[in-house]
């Protein structure tokens, strides 16, 4: 089953930047905000709600179409896979994405969300979530719960008990180690997750 990152509850964001730090820490091995693939923005200082700018996993990605050399290819579950080796920093994808979800790093390589889900584990306020989608990237419509398949929304509709929600989330995390991903990546995720699962049970 394909998964993607979703900004499920934007209004719950407290602007802590934990997600950005997690992303840069995991994928760029740095302590920074700059190379995070998710961007938490203010639109009028912290008096106004935060905006979470990140790839929203287009079903038919314009960034991919804009790339003249095929560095971006369609990802299972929406969005794109990025081939850093061949990216030559033309910046056409940056322009094509109206979300503003792409920027270039210091070597002029695109910085694009790969929907790994690491950031969701560092979001203290249920803003970010991994959701299940069709391989095409289309939202799945199920017969239970709301159409929007986010864990935290099920609660709003009163369809699910709290524990069920928890285990659902756990599964979401597990499912993340997608088999088609390369070895190193798996290890990386496992390491990042560490004893995450055990702790998830202890919370609350």
């Amino acid at each position, binding site marked *: 089953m394909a998964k993607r990152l979703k900004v499920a509850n934007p*209004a719950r964001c*407290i*602007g*802590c*930047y*934990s997600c950005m*730090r997690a992303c840069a*820490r*995991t*994928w*760029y*091995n*740095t*302590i*920074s*905000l*700059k*190379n995070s693939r998710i*961007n*938490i*923005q*203010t*639109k*009028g*200082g*912290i*008096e106004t*709600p935060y905006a979470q700018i990140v790839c929203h996993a287009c079903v038919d990605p314009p960034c991919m179409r804009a790339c003249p050399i095929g560095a971006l*290819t369609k990802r299972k579950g929406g969005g794109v*896979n*990025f*081939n*850093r*080796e061949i990216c030559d920093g033309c910046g056409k994808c940056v322009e094509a994405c109206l979300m503003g979800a792409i920027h270039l*790093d*210091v*070597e002029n*390589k695109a910085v694009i969300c*790969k929907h790994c889900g690491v950031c969701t584990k*560092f979001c*203290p*306020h249920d803003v970010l979530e991994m959701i299940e989608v069709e391989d095409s990237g289309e939202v799945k419509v199920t017969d239970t719960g709301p159409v929007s398949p986010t864990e935290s929304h099920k609660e709003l509709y009163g369809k699910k008990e709290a524990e069920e929600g928890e285990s659902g989330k756990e599964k979401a995390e597990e499912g993340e180690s997608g088999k*088609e*991903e*390369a*070895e*190193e*990546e798996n290890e*990386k995720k496992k*390491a*990042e997750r*560490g004893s995450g699962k055990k*702790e998830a049970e*202890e*919370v609350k």
Partner: protein
Amino acid sequence: MTAEKVITTTEKYAIPGLTNVLYLDMTDRSYSIVDRRDLYEKYLGGSGVAVNLMLEEYKEGTGPLDPEMPVILSTGPLSGVYPTCTKTVALFRSPLNGELGESYAGGHLAMSMRFAGCETIVIKGASKYPLYVSVHNDKVRFRDASSIWNLSSTIDVGKIIRDVEPGAGRRSIIRIGPAGEKGVKYASVNVDTYRHFGRLGLGAVFGAKKLKAIVISGDQEIRSPDHTAYKKQYKKLYDTIVKTGLMEKYHNLGTSENVLVLNELRGLPTRNLQGTSFEGAETISGEHFADNYLIRRVSCAGCPIGCIHVAMLKRPFSKAHEYETLNISYDFELIYALGSNLGVEDPKAVLELIDACEKTGVDIISMGVVLAWATEMLQKKKISTEETLGLELNWGDAAAYLRAIELVVRAPNEFYAALGKGVVYASKKYGGEEFAIHLGGLEIPGYHTGLGNILGLTMGVRHSHLDNAGYSADQKAFNKEMSDEEIIDMLIKEDDLRCMLNSLTICLFARNVYTYENVIEALAAIGIRKTEEELKELGRDTLKKKYELKKKFGFSFENLALPKRFFETASTTGMLEEERVKKALELYRKKRGL
């Protein structure tokens, strides 16, 4: 499909420790960035570094508002690196009591300074006309701020600078309001709207330098020499903060939880500390605010707690159902100062009063105490409405207090000008010193819990409620008999610990997370080795040097005043006798070797 590995770029990474000090000279609008690794290696950062810089810079006899008097802002090696390391310390000479001024603010400032690569800023000199300074990485500009001088609200200053400067979302904008411009001695510096350098009058120092604002942003990268260890350590701290109960209080009701707690304990100063419990506590409680006014919570950059509680006040302004809405952040100290201590039990009125202070840019605790003192002066007929320009001040009368706040800032006559100089100055001039509730020349925060609190506020180097363990010692003593000596020992131990934490500019709300053990590991994971003994020594050394500075600035134990009111009103742990406090002060001094 390509397997994407962890990316390593050719970018030059900043070293994990701190490097630079940015020196700003307001007089000739020049600056320099100096490598001061020597200082950071010895004293880590934050208050440790700031104290040593102050000793370097201070020229004997310089007054708080003299141009040569430096202001030092400093962050620590953990800033921008670990969760809840969000503070910046400001060191200056306080225009309120002439002593060492030390104040801490959160917001985005620490992270912005860190990623800009100027981890400490020293500001000297004074400009002839208003300036603001913009720092984006190593680009520094002095810009004419005449057009934003005289704006009536600190909030508007932020809005304007946001539009003319880059760095949205990654920057910090610190600025003063009318109170700082006009030299109210307890003016604050507003940091990113909801946080402040509140206590001891940094705003007036900015005003004297004609420094309206500083905007700072940066996007440098830091890399740990041992990234795996860093990641592990980050996760450990993050989980302790988010998933254990250690910081529950701050992300649930926030500090305002204390309103009912202290009221119950009979330690909540009420009506200028004529009492310690307030019959209106229920309606100004954290619970009541959360249920009725809280709309969102916000974090300082890099903290997953979100302790900044923002309330929405819907205020009608015509009979035709027209409303304006204001978003106002509230905290315990503010509710005490403008609520119980002024006898205001209407939560909307408390919010309005907070908003007025926020916009004008004054320290709310000091303002609340000054107004409470003035109210009692009127009631005791020691002054009349002649002094107050016809304004009657009565407990609970929020409209009068709203007007009074403006009058204090505008200072249209001698009396209001005196109020703007603090409760010590005003009571020396007009009388009522017995009930001018200050310690060491600083209006007291919202606790009257007993000996520990009074000792802590008197001896604590910045007279601040968070820099000493006075209130928690009293709470302990309330639950279980403790000798005065035990209370003193606890204060000393905690003083040292907090002095060390302040060199790392950790938010003290997370003090139970950042134990010595965790601090040592956190530092090690970014390549800085310190032993527990070294950290303890750093705490003691910093405290000693602060006392050195205090003495240079004119502090003496002999001149300490203890207003009678503290001995007339029963505290949480009962009535206090002056003799007992004096004896305890002596003992503290002896143990400290001061």
